[in-house]
């Protein structure tokens, strides 16, 4: 990795966010991590700070959020349709769901790279990082 990795964490559970953050740091101590407990805020950030996402930012997106679900968030994201944003965002669904349907939906969605079950582990982070580089 050349420069500091950028990570966006969107999850309504603060505990989860902090765990995730810690895990990422344990792999990439220099990582740039922003957490959102409210998906709307994340949306706002992505829209207005598109440049900050360059060259690429990894997004860990939870599914089960009260106000806006993960899927709804993705739909909103697609509606924004800022080409740079979508290009630079590497979206991973991270969910406690064990529902097969969510998994297949993730597979079918072109904007989602992959689906991971919580919790985010070091292995997961490493995989993501390698994928980013490779």
């Amino acid at each position: 990795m050349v420069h500091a990795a950028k990570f966006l964490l969107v999850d309504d559970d603060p505990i989860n966010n902090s765990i995730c953050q810690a895990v990422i740091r344990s792999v990439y101590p220099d990582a740039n991590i922003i957490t959102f407990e409210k998906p709307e805020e994340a949306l706002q950030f992505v829209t207005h700070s598109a440049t900050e996402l360059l060259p690429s930012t990894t997004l860990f997106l939870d599914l089960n959020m009260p106000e806006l679900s993960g899927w709804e968030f993705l739909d909103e994201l697609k509606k924004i349709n800022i080409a740079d944003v979508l290009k630079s965002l590497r979206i991973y669904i991270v969910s406690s769901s064990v529902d097969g349907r969510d998994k297949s939906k993730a597979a079918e969605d072109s904007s989602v790279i992959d689906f991971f079950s919580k919790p985010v582990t070091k292995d997961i982070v490493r995989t993501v990082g390698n994928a980013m580089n490779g």
Partner: protein
Amino acid sequence: MTIPPPVRSFYPSRLRNQLMLGICTVLVVLMSVFVYYMVKRQQSFLKQQNLVQARNLAHDLSMNASTYVVTNEFAMLDKLLQSYKPYPNLRYAMVLSANGRVMSHTDNKLVGLTPNDDVSRSLKSEPQVQTLVENNDVLDIAAPVMSDGEIVGWVRVGFEQRYILQNLDAIQRNGILYILFALGVGVIVSLLIANRLIRELSALVSTVEKIRTGKQNVRASGSRTMEINNLAQTFNQMLDEISANEHLLEMMMENMPVGVFTLDEKGIIVSANNAARELWNGAEYVGIENFEVYKAWFVDSGKRVQAHEWGGAVAIERGEKTLNQEIEVEAFDGSRKFVLNSAIPLRDEHERIIGAVVINVDITERKKLAHQVQERMKELRTIYRTSKILQNETDNLNTLLQKIVDILPAGWQYPEVCAAKIEFDNKVFTSPNYQASDVKQVAEIITEDGKTGFISVIYTAEKPAEAEGPFLKEERDLIDTLAELFEVQYNKRVAYNALVRSEANLLAVFENTDVGHLLLDRNLNVVAFNRRFQTGYEKSLQTPLEVEQNYLQRLAPESRESVSQHYAEVFRTKQPIEYDTKLDIDGVEKYLTINVAPVLNRGRVDGLCVSVSDITRRKLLELEREKMIADLMQRNTDLEQFAYIVSHNLRTPVANIIGLAGLLDDALPEATRKQYLSSLGASVKRLDDVIKDLNEILQVRRQVNENKVQVDFNALVTNIKTSISQLLERTNTEIQTDFADATGMLTISSYINSIFYNFISNSIKYAHPSRTPKIKISSATEDSRVVLRFADNGAGIDMEKHGKHVFGLYKRFDVAKEGKGIGLFMTKTQVETLGGKINVESKPGVGTEFIVTL
């Protein structure tokens, strides 16, 4: 001018005599008249002359004597008288004195006398000349002798009258002689004329005679006498005309299509026209005695016609006519013919028979045709009768066959020697007198079901040959036709029986099926229906169903449109259609499947077959099943959702725990470690909470067996109000209730309590920010279920967005508010456990209404 009868007998008949009589009579009469006249004229003339003479003489004498009378000169008177004496026819002359004395007289003897006879006395003393006597004998004239106007004497002269008579006699004698002479002349002349006339007339008569005896072209000759000439000419003309007519008649007769013989008064055949000669192949011009050369037999009796029995003979001998007598003749060439014989006597104006006309009409052909017709009639009648026998549908076959075989012989030419036999299906039927015979006609019977037989007709005697042995060609046709008739009828019967059986079967099926059937014709009139259909129809529409009604008209108006559209579609597509419908029958809602199939006849839709199946039970089962499935699916979904949510809610803390555990594995600064541990604790607690919730939920599902009690809603609400009185006060919540329709129900009190409580607390919790909460709870009874309505004026729910999640587990819409989001889920569970349904209606900003049906 008619001659009176007495004279007629006297009147001669012969012309000559007539003429003679006529002329002579005329002459005699005329002459007699003439002579008589002449005589009478002469007589009167002479008498007149005499008279005149006498008177003149008397006068003269009186004149002359007057002086002498006065002077009484008798001598002079005598002289005077003497001078008159030579006067012709003077018988006497006298001069009388005034007193009647004879002064002078031619007869001297009488002088001086006084006549005293009547004659003299008749002398009147008048001064005029008087005729004293005038008769055939004498004429006595007296003339007065006047002197100075006084009578001084009389002169009387007497003239002879007799000579007149004598004269007359002579004339008369001569006259008669002349008459006789004339008579003679007359006779002679008349004889001559008569003879002449008679000769000429005789010539005419002889011409007639000649013609009568047969000479055709004789004509009367002319004569000098014009009238006879005219007569002769007229006669000739007449003869010509007669000749022409005769010729015409002859031609007619010759060319008449019937044979005509004419007989003379003796009964001898004088003519035979063409047709007669053709019929007899010749003609014999013979008399009655020889009539037997014409051979014939009476058709009715078969006896030979004798000479005097011939119609012509009868006409001549007895004057009787014969009409249309049927005879069979043998012509001169030996051929046999049938003839209608008629004969009529001919009479003259005196009713005397002068001949006869015999007419022979050849009816051989006609008779032959009549015979043929008769035979055809017999055959036809046999066919009719057979047909009629076969039409009898109740008699069994054997009876029919026997009847037929009995009437068969009557159809053949010689019924008296004819008999028949029918064999069929191993049974034999014969007419009386049937026997085996070589002379037979046979026809075969073959029926559709493979049975065979024969019809045989036999003659028991030899008969003249025809087309097929002694049998006519038409009889062959007859026997074949009869066999066919029987086959047809037999086949019909078989088919009919099969049909009846099949119909009975079909009817059994039709009537005993579960499906109602209705048959309609092209115009949608009712043709037939089974009981099931009828019952259903009549129960549903309350009118009787009848054949030949128009079905559409008999439907309820509201369904007519759709039904007629369905029917139209079938007519158009010629394919059956099926559709379901609901109908109210007897107050019960029934589900029906209606199948409308076209009745096709050679590609044309002749009608419709409507089949109605009552699928209510099945439908209800189906509906129930569907409901159950829906319910199950819903439950399943709920369960899945539940599972999903639970798993998620379980997994979240678990994931955190795992993550934290992983992190704690590493060496960490103490502060961080503590932080992590604290988080770990929190996560574990969270996990525990979820499990507890789960338990609670599961418990609810299990507690179906808790006892049901009668719960009063009013009491219930009052209790709740009491328990949350502070909250109500704080929020200024108003609770209205209306339990008039349903004051309470039998149910699990804790659940209903919980339900009410949840709704009330939710309404308060999610009240509209700008107004105080108003809650209205009402109850109603619908379809034997209790319907509870909880309506509020709160913030409302966006049903479009969140409708699915209202009762979802851990779904909250306003995360700002406290609550885990299991309230409504629990409520729903509780309602469903009680066997009820829960619905929600809401408008954001207006309010929400929950409807619970228990």
